[in-house]
């Protein structure tokens, strides 16, 4: 069994290598390459450009630069941001928690909602609830998240003023004037109310697809022979659904969720932009706009690492849920 995970680890490292190579090559191939940022500004003279190139090591040929980057990255040094001059790693780490917060919240919402809806739809097949859920799933899948986000902002923030329109947390400027809140609920709400809208927007399309999948998986499982045996043994219906069927129905969902992980990051990019959420997505966009390739490479590699780790986790979970896999590996 250890063999299997070693193989996975090797594949993971290979994937990271290829991803970084791909990103690097694409940037190199573009007009201007790594220096693109500076080429367009007419105010920068040739001498300045040469100086900058020397400073950032951009005068070396591309393959050498890539290897240097690789070596540095493995040691944890992701380079210096061309925009701000600060280490890339610092920039990213400052924003990583925010993104993770948003994504985790959204992930939990998606998962629970999808499982609940899926179970309900499967057990009340063809009922009004089921058809409604199906229609909604379809809608959610087609929804442009940025538009929906704007709509929500308009409704909840502008018209109704229930939720804040952006940002992650209210800055408390003057601790003398405004005593910091101590009641746990207030603290909780303070943190949560900024999360609600972005997390909802981020989860919608996933709820749409996951719940359909959960439904079909449950229906599939419920028609299996072992469910019939459980019924024949007198196990009450509720237990059959939540204990016997669910366990088996979750395994395909785990695979799907693992495959969908990259889309979470993609969604986060857009959502963070709309809601001014100070996370990696926003950093990515501003880096792209400024053609700060160091930051871009950094974010790409870190995202890839996260996604691949997530897949590994999903793999573990799958083996845990389905003992047949455990023994095969």
């Amino acid at each position, binding site marked *: 069994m250890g063999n299997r995970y070693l193989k996975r680890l090797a594949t993971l490292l290979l994937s990271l290598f290829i991803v970084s190579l791909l990103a690097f090559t694409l940037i190199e191939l573009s007009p201007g390459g790594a220096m693109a940022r500076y080429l367009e500004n007419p105010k920068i003279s040739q001498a300045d450009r040469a100086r900058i190139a020397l400073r950032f090591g951009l005068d070396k040929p591309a393959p050498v630069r890539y290897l240097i980057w690789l070596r540095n990255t493995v040691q944890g040094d992701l380079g210096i941001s061309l925009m701000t001059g600060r280490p890339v790693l610092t920039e990213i780490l400052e924003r990583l928690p925010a993104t993770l917060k948003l994504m985790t919240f959204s992930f939990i919402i998606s998962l629970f909602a999808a499982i609940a809806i899926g179970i309900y739809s499967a057990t009340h097949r063809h009922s009004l609830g089921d058809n409604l859920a199906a229609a909604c799933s379809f809608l959610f899948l087609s929804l442009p998240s940025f538009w929906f986000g704007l709509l929500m902002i308009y409704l909840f923030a502008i018209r109704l003023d229930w939720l804040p329109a952006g940002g992650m947390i209210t800055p408390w400027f003057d601790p003398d004037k405004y005593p910091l809140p101590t009641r746990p609920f207030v603290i909780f709400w303070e943190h949560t109310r900024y999360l609600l809208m972005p997390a909802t927007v981020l989860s919608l399309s996933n709820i749409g697809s996951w719940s359909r999948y959960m439904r079909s998986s449950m229906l599939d499982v419920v028609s*299996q*022979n*072992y469910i*019939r*045996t*459980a*019924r*024949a*043994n*007198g*196990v*009450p*219906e509720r237990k059959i659904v939540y204990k*016997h069927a669910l*366990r*088996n129905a979750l395994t395909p969902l785990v695979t799907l969720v693992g495959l969908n992980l990259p889309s979470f990051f993609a969604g986060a990019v857009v959502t963070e932009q709309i809601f001014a959420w100070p996370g990696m997505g926003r950093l990515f966009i501003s880096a792209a706009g400024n053609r700060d390739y160091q930051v871009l490479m950094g974010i790409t590699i870190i995202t890839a690492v996260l996604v691949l780790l997530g897949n590994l986790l999903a793999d573990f979970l799958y083996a845990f*849920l*389905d*003992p*047949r896999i455990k*023994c095969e590996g």
Partner: protein
Amino acid sequence: MVNILADILLELKNLKTKFKTYNGEVKAVDGIDLTVHKKEVLGILGESGCGKSATALSIMRLIPSPPGEVCADKMELRGVELQFLTEKQMSKVRGNEISMIFQDPLSALNPTFTVGEQLMELLMLHQGFDRNTAYHKAIEALNIVQIPAAANRLSDYPHQLSGGMRQRVMLAMACACSPSLLLADEPTTALDVTVQAQILDLLSQLQSEMEIAIMLITHDLGVVAEIAQRVAVMYAGVVVENATVQNLFAKPLHPYTQGLLASLPLLEVEQERLNVIPGGVPNMLDLPSGCRFHPRCPHCWQICRLQEPPLFSQNESEVRCWLFAQGIDK
């Protein structure tokens, strides 16, 4: 009939099970009467599609309700009318008073739970044991079905066991709560011949030691010959012959039964071709008029084409065939 009425465990009268399909209504079971006495093995013999599995599922009330419909004049277990029970009450009966085992033990066991968990769940549910007691009872149950090293087996998953072992586990689960009736739906069909023999022996043992009555559903004459005491032969949804196993093999009455026995390959006599019953099983959506077997019957008369025969008594057996009617103009 030899047995005393007081010994009757299960009584079915006029059981009918219908399925509404896209192409029409299928009468899987079309009015059958069965009785099972305590501690006896009743064999239900018939080809695929004749309604024998449907009968068992109907007794357990496991027929899915939207397409299926079960109704009977009487469906009594020890005097309790099963049709009147609520779903909750019925689930207490299942696994407890009546158990069922199925054909394919691999797909019939939940792959994500260990054998022990599945057994213990059953025991805790019906007998109210706590985990510890249930654990020991589970080991007991596995011992009864002669699984070696029972304690170790409890933590195994179904796919880790061989086919024969799995079927024993299913039997253990079925008998764990000492039911009075066990419905066995083709329990040996998916197994090797040697394992078949073992399982049949086991069933016999359970019958005598734990005093469980068994309704054994099969298409295999050999299985019936091995452990059944009485046999009901089914064809296209109805019972066509009801006899003791000795009488059935010695003197089969219904032409269908005769055909089945005749088609067994003989060891002593050289045969160029095996005997077959001509024709095929009728389409359940389009049953023949009159007696269902008449298109394939070598003794078919005019009346057979027009009217379905009722069950006639003949010595100790019952037969659904006009051949055995008295005083009717044929």
